[in-house]
């Protein structure tokens, strides 16, 4: 009997042990044959989603124009209007292309090897012992649309160096440094654009010229018609100013669209910087006040900020160093030698930044501790306001950190997501590019993951080392793969557009209309929890509390469920309070009355 008992107990134990769930994180969508686009559920599980973006084009340098050849280790990408700038870092050039709206193809407009230097900025353009107007491994370009007003209002700050077109050839000086053969046609071409800009505004007769764009290797005849096209596009009010991070020349060049240098940011001087500090800007943006923010090598106290004159004014978005109590105690216990040997508390280093339409800086940090990511204390994406503090909203089920599950063991998954680029859209959604997995994560303004897609691989829409991206318009994303030298164009599908529409309707206060769209989205993707919340909110406003509770429960939205439940409870209580009071009164008085009757009867009997 006793042995039987023991055996049963052991068997039960066995059962317990075998059925303990293994806590190894798994990442389902890593395999190529699994789904492509996914979201995370409340339980932080990857759930399949319809494609929000589809690959519409993959471009090598040659596909844009044979003249370009192959891109060599390109690092930066910038889109504005229909223009596309590629920093072909390894070839020391910047390629400017445009998307032809008629046939949807990308075409070359020019290749930038050097800039035009005037006498006033010649000193600033000095590199080594001579004026150097070439680019040396440019890593990033930022283009700022300038209006005449803007240029005039900052004219005082800029001082005299801005050279108007007619002065251009007169003050030309940079050419003496390197008389390369490609230089001359470039400058001629630049002059051509200017004349085109001012004179031929009403001229629509370029169709014949556009037709003659045969793939001839000589650059000069090709650039004429192509440039006209570009000029026509930006004719009315916009003049673009270019900010080029000329990394190995240790400067940021600010020039106008015709490459006349206006200003140069170089050699920042400050007490916080080391004596022999070499300014190597990687990524730059310029805000509406023409302040330049740069992410530079070896700077870990935030983004460097420069004023309109190019003077270093300080850091923005320095991360606070928080030392845990345990760490402090541990340091107290260490010897001096150990303390020196142990890692310093270094704040994190930004690796990319971009500007949204309202002037906030979105910045990414790739050097984050995986432990911090698990704990939710790391912030690989930040939205910085003018004060430099992080104002990104993180109300989602999980923080915007990319993939939520990773392991160091599986060969296909290599640690946590490392963001290398971020772009903010008009509607405050933002997309982040994860280099470790070649994935793009798109979050809404509340920090909910809308969808993630991409991956490492050789098929369309997968990358080997995605390094930069930008959005050509609100529905087209371009991603630059640095090792392959390709640009992949993603276009938004109907599903993605519906999500944007629903978000937009909700944000502008059309709750019922947004619920309709969310309902349609559910037809595509029943796993999309955000849609349930959207419908639930609309129902809540329509005072259909019971139904709203159901939707919120599907999405595990406790906050809103509680709100709906509170209203529902009020409704129920109001409905039944009369009966409840009646029942209570009955409960109290009926037994008393019965007792009284019995008593009276007994008295009658006895009497």
């Amino acid at each position: 009997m006793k042995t039987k008992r023991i055996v049963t107990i052991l068997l039960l134990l066995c059962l317990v042990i075998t059925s303990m769930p293994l806590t190894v994180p798994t990442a389902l969508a890593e395999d190529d044959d699994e789904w492509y686009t996914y979201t995370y559920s409340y339980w932080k599980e990857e759930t399949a989603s319809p494609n929000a973006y589809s690959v519409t084009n993959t471009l090598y340098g040659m596909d844009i124009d044979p003249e370009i050849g192959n891109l060599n280790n390109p690092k930066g990408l910038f889109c504005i209007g229909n223009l596309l700038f590629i920093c072909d870092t390894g070839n020391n050039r910047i390629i400017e292309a445009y998307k032809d709206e008629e046939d949807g193809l990308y075409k070359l407009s020019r290749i930038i090897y050097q800039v035009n230097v005037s006498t006033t900025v010649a000193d600033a353009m000095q590199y080594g012992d001579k004026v150097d107007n070439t680019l040396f491994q440019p890593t990033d370009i930022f283009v700022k649309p300038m209006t005449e007003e803007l240029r005039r209002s900052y004219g005082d700050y800029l001082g005299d160096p801005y050279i108007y077109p007619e002065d251009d050839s007169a003050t030309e000086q940079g050419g003496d440094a390197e008389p390369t053969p490609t230089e001359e046609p470039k400058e001629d071409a630049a002059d051509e654009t200017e004349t085109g800009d001012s004179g031929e505004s009403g001229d629509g007769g370029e169709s014949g010229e556009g037709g003659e764009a045969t793939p001839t290797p000589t650059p000069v005849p090709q650039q004429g018609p192509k440039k006209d096209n570009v000029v026509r596009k930006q004719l009315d009010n916009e003049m673009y100013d270019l900010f080029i991070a000329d990394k190995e020349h240790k400067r940021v060049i600010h020039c106008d669209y015709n490459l006349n240098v206006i200003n140069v940011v170089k050699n920042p001087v400050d007490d916080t910087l080391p004596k022999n500090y070499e300014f190597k800007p990687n990524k730059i943006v310029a805000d509406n006040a023409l302040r330049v923010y740069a992410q530079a090598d070896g700077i870990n106290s935030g983004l460097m900020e420069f004023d309109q004159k190019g003077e270093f004014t300080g850091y923005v978005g320095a991360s606070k160093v928080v030392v845990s109590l345990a760490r402090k105690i541990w340091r107290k216990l260490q010897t001096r030698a150990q303390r020196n040997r142990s890692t310093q508390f270094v704040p994190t280093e930004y690796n990319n930044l971009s500007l949204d339409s309202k002037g906030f800086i979105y910045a990414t940090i790739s050097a984050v501790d995986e432990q911090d990511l698990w704990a939710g204390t790391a912030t690989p994406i930040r939205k910085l306001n003018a004060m430099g503090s992080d104002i990104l909203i993180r109300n989602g089920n999980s923080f915007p950190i990319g993939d939520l599950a990773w392991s160091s063991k599986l060969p296909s998954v290599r640690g946590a997501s490392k963001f290398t680029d971020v772009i903010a859209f008009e509607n405050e959604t933002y997309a982040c590019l994860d280099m470790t997995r070649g994935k793009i994560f798109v979050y809404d303004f509340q920090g909910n993951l809308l969808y993630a897609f991409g991956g490492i691989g050789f098929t369309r829409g997968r990358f080997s080392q995605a390094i930069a991206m930008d959005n050509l318009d609100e529905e087209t994303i371009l991603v630059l793969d640095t090792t392959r030298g390709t640009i992949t164009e993603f276009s938004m599908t109907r599903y993605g557009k519906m999500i944007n529409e629903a978000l937009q309707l909700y944000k502008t206060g059309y709750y019922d209309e947004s619920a309709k769209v969310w309902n349609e989205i559910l037809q595509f993707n029943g796993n999309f929890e955000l849609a349930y919340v959207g419908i639930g909110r609309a129902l809540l406003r329509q005072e259909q509390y019971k139904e709203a509770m159901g939707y919120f429960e599907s999405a595990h939205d406790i906050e809103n469920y509680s709100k709906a439940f509170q209203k529902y409870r009020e409704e129920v209580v109001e409905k039944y309070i009369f009966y409840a009071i009646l029942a209570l009164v009955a409960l109290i008085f009926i037994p008393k009355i019965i007792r009284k009757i019995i008593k009276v009867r007994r008295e009658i009997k006895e009497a």
Partner: protein
Amino acid sequence: MKKFLSAIAGFFHGESWANYKKTLRYAFYVILHPFDGFWDLTHEKRGSLAAANTITILAVLTHLWDRRFANFMVNNTRWSEFSIWLNTLGILVPLLIWVTANWCVTTLMDGKGRFLQIYMGTAYAFTPYVIIGLPMILLSNVVTKEEGVFYTYFNIFALVWSGFLILCAVLMIHDYSLLKGLVAIIISIVGMAVIMFVVLLFFSLLSDAVMYFVSLYKEILFRME
């Protein structure tokens, strides 16, 4: 049939049923007068194993019902991964290991309690968890998220109370001083870890041994062909 019914009726009027009711009711006395209560539980035989089993089963049911019926605002159960057996054993197996470990330790530390007495004391200590936990399940369904903290705090309170009662049970059943009781509990917890380790080791070795013979058998089959 009539005989059977009368037998049942007889049981409910019998002495053992009355004793069961009395010992079960005694749980209320124990949780309010722990020192006195646990002393009498074993020394005066005012508790019974039947009542202890009842409380254990109720505790398991409370836990299961809590997972099943508590409002989803306070209940983060993932139904696709919920196993009723795992949750049941999640209470019963630690209880068994605890009683075993405590019995082993206190035998060496001049404890007066026997195995079943330790079990009885521990089971009686679960009473607050049951009598607070069950109403809290109902309460959780009529409160909002903000009011839901009551649910949390009352449940924590119940667990603290139960924990305190287990300490009292150890002190009284084994006739220990406070310090000795605390030491015994700590060693028991270490003992629980050791037991789990040994069981795991045993099963892994067992499976290795089985695998050895299986492969031996396969090898022989292979050679014979």
